[in-house]
């Protein structure tokens, strides 16, 4: 239980995907202008992250690189990882879109535009591959994916507040728009550096 909590909070505060690992920067810069769209996008991303991990982990473990009892591989098709994972994510996003459209039309409407964009969000492919690389088991992978999603949400919500202030500020002409936003992101990211080691200290690992 403690290990799971450590993974979860590390993903949110210390290894934040957006501000520390630079994954999912495109939606971070594109959709963080307004608070409600930032929250909607983050929730959709979190959902797809968890679903994608739940789908890719068994495929990697049982289909691509199944292991014998003594740890040797029955066969190694690990080189197919990239192609298989991105196709699964694309299918999943499509599926989520259909299901939401049919059963929860209100949520579909509020997320509509952002759903197809999630396929090319590198944080999703990133979390599925990193879970395999880190050797997490199934439960740990799911917790890690949920933590990454919540971390994305925290970063988006915090940054949409910073951005509202930045947009009212007077900036040099060539800095207007994205450049000053990136400088503001640097400051936000610096504040997350302060969380280094906090999770280990709290849980006494």
């Amino acid at each position, binding site marked *: 239980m403690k290990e799971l909590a450590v993974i979860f909070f590390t993903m949110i505060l210390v290894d934040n995907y957006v*501000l*520390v*690992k*630079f*994954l*999912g*920067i*495109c939606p971070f*810069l594109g959709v963080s202008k307004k608070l409600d769209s930032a929250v909607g996008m983050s929730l959709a991303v979190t959902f797809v992250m968890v679903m994608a991990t739940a789908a890719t982990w068994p495929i990697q473990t049982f289909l691509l690189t199944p292991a014998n009892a003594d740890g040797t591989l029955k066969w190694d098709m690990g*080189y*197919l*990882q*990239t*192609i298989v994972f*991105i*196709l699964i994510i*694309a299918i999943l996003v499509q599926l989520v879109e259909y299901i939401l459209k049919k059963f929860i039309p209100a949520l579909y409407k509020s997320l509509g535009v952002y759903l197809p964009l999630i*396929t*090319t*969000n*590198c944080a999703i*492919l*990133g979390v599925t*591959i*990193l879970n395999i*690389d880190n050797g997490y088991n199934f439960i740990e992978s799911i917790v890690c994916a949920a933590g990454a999603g919540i971390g994305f949400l925290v970063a988006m919500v915090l940054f949409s507040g910073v951005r509202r202030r930045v947009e009212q500020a007077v900036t*040099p002409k*060539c*800095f207007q728009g*994205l*450049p*000053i*936003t*990136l*400088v503001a*992101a*640097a*400051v936000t*990211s*610096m504040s*997350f*550096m302060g969380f280094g080691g906090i999770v280990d200290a709290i849980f006494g690992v």
Partner: protein
Amino acid sequence: MNNKLKVLTNGFLAENPVLRLVLGTCPTLAVTSMASNGIGMGLAATFVLVCSNIVISLLRKVIPSQVRIPCYITVIAGFVSVVQMLVKAYLPDLDKALGVYLPLIVVNCIILGRAEMFASKNGILDSALDGLGMGIGFTFTLVIMGSIREILGAGTWMAGLGTLVPALPADFSVQVIPASIDPFTIMTSAPGGFFVFGVLMAGATWLTTRPKKAAAVEGGNA
């Protein structure tokens, strides 16, 4: 001929994929803590970009437009797997340095973006040139950003180039700032990435929105 040249050089500054079109920001920020990583990442992405542009341009009349995005992604993922296997086999150090960002070339929006915006509408030669130009622009930006961050953050330049170029010694690096001066380490970590990217983007905006005045001045001097 002039037209072909324009297609090629478009990606250098006027339509620089990173600084002007703001595509492919994740790898730009993530791998540029060292200039040599920028070269490796840039070349890998250029290879995928040129190959996928050629194939997609060849197939542009075959792929139905409703399912074009999944088709493009499959083509791109195929070439990324090729690059992954080549890098793992011949440049294992680069593979370690780029880590998860190497397979993530699949979702690099530069590649899908150029497939959608250019290769699906233009001939093979133009598409190949466009891919090459965009790739060079991408590599160039990565190297500049990597150089700034590495020189300020670690005091060295091109450390790790020895693992890319066999002719150089493995521990090749240029000491730019004397080792006795404490490096500005925040530049190689996450905030420095965002900051240098923001400043470079402002610089590119300044360079491309200012030209009329500057061209007149240069012309006057000549």
